[in-house]
């Protein structure tokens, strides 16, 4: 799992070509559907199940990268 792979998953989740770590996860792009799609993608690619509360609370793409790469 690399930072770029997670950023690609985030980009796919919100249906854009690419995102930076600084991306702000506002309500317009980070809704309940996006949260579920992201959790499913991380589970499918890495077998890891993220805490939905943490994913919901994430403010930036970096937060998602950090929690995904955490052991």
């Amino acid at each position, binding site marked *: 799992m690399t930072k770029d792979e997670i950023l690609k998953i985030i980009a796919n989740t919100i*249906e854009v070509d690419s995102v930076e770590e600084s991306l702000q996860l506002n309500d317009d792009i980070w809704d*309940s*559907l996006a*949260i*579920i*799609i992201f*959790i*499913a993608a991380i*589970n*499918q690619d890495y077998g890891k*199940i*993220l*805490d*939905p509360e943490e*994913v*919901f609370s994430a403010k930036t793409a970096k937060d998602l990268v950090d929690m995904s790469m955490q052991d």
Partner: protein
Amino acid sequence: MIKIDGVKISGISACVPKSVVNNEDLTENQKLINSIGVKQRHISSENQHTMDLCVFAAENLIKEMDIEKNSIDAVIFVSQTPEYQLPATACIIQDILKLKNNIVAYDVNLGCSGYTHGLFLASSLVQSGFNNVLLLVGDTVSKIVEENDSSSNLLFGDAGSATVIAQQVDSDISFVLGSDGSGFESIIVDNSNNKNTNNKNDFLTMNGAEVFTFTLKRIPQLIKDTLAYSKLNKDEVNHCIFHQANLFMLETLARSIDINFDKFLISIDKYGNTSSASIPVTICHNREKIVKNPEKVLMAGFGVGLSWSTAVSDLKGAIILPILEV
């Protein structure tokens, strides 16, 4: 895990309201419609309740199976939208259907896992010596969904069902069942008549992400355990009939347990998530596929409670009726 010998599912029917709501008329969010997989839903009228749908399904099934009403020794009503807090709706149904008085009649409060739990209870009664057991399972969740709740108001449809479980030598049904109440708040109507709460809410609230992760954590292992207990290879399963939670969840589960999605029977596109009735609705909606290949059917219910259960059964010889609209 338990295998109940000497029982079979001998008939299944389902009933939905005539009134259809198209989700495209309610939202322009095509991504959401595609993800949950619900194009339309059947919604009950103001005076049409779960009991009514189940009674229609039962009357239809009793007639088509030509069952003697005196041979029905129990009626079990599984629902989260009963007629009253008390008495049990099953008792009212005994009278409406003119079933005998020396009958066992009770309600079970379960939703998504309700059908497979109900099959377990009915099969247990049959194994204990009962003749036909009438299992009525359904919900009218549309009545407890808040109009502006974006997580629920496109998802749920209303339906009722009836199933007859009977004695049959050389037939069995295998079950795996469980509950985890630590997640009880994930799907809840926080309106208790018996408990003081500051957050009384007459409507359903659902934490979709919590329910999704519960499913990811629990259901793949549940399916592995079920297949191992039933001595079945996943390739031998003919049909996967899972609770129709939402299409994205079903697709994710299929990938996770590595079963071809072609084996998953679907009704959510036309009927929505019909809560406890979703498995019998899916069976009746796909009756032609099942009749062609009725063996080794894997059913799985999971959700509110949180709770889960699976049943592995053959539907060979079962009378499966088309969905009735009333």
